[in-house]
């Protein structure tokens, strides 16, 4: 069974390691899992780590936008890292690039 998301907390930052294919199928559990983690921990920054991700469609845009709304409503931040060319085009066409900052690597994204 292919693992979809894995989560890593560093102080008040939650790093979400995204799967190889970020589609509707693989996004199904993200809302439930992140809602649980955000309820139980004080998190003011989410880093979406795309290092492993080779494909994303509009399902990915949906989950990013929702986390962005959730976090900014409480003064928090959402950032991205490790984005490849296909994902970057989807982010641009989906209007995400204007809203959410993207960093070259994970460490830079965590520090900000």
């Amino acid at each position, binding site marked *: 069974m292919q693992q979809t998301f894995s989560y890593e907390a560093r102080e008040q930052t939650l790093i979400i390691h995204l799967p190889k294919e970020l589609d509707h199928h693989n996004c199904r559990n993200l*809302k439930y899992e992140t809602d649980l983690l955000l309820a139980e921990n004080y998190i003011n920054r989410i880093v979406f780590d795309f290092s492993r991700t080779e494909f994303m469609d509009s399902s990915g845009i949906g989950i990013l936008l929702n986390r962005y709304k959730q976090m900014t409503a409480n003064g928090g931040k959402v950032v991205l890292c490790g984005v490849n060319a296909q994902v970057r085009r989807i982010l641009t066409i989906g209007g995400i690039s204007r809203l959410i900052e993207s960093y070259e690597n994970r460490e830079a994204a965590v520090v900000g």
Partner: protein
Amino acid sequence: MERFRMEIESLSKNEELARVVTAVFMSRLDPTLEELDDVKTAVSEAVTNAVIHGYQEKEGIIYMELQAENRQLTVLVRDLGVGIPDVKKAMEPMYTTDLSGERSGMGFAFMEAFMDQVQVESEPGQGTLVTMRKKIGR
């Protein structure tokens, strides 16, 4: 014309299968990596729509047909699900019937962004047929 047909169960795990099969069929047209990604994204959107909206995440069969003629790729995705009452409205960017907030409402906008032509035929209760065309290797 070269033609390939398949029927898949309306299951979210088949979204990836549909993308991969399309990419393999399409490879005979010698596409660029970008063209491959474009078509895979559009197919993913159409099949996801069939799973979520057409069949409301319940049982059903999705009918796919791929055609290649000269450098023209045609992808047909058909479901026999609930259909769309107002196709024009459904195709507006950001329009979604989803209440969870997890769906962006950009499925059709992505199909249109990545393919040369997208045609949607639908009637309530009659299912939906999405026909997409793209010229490969321009």
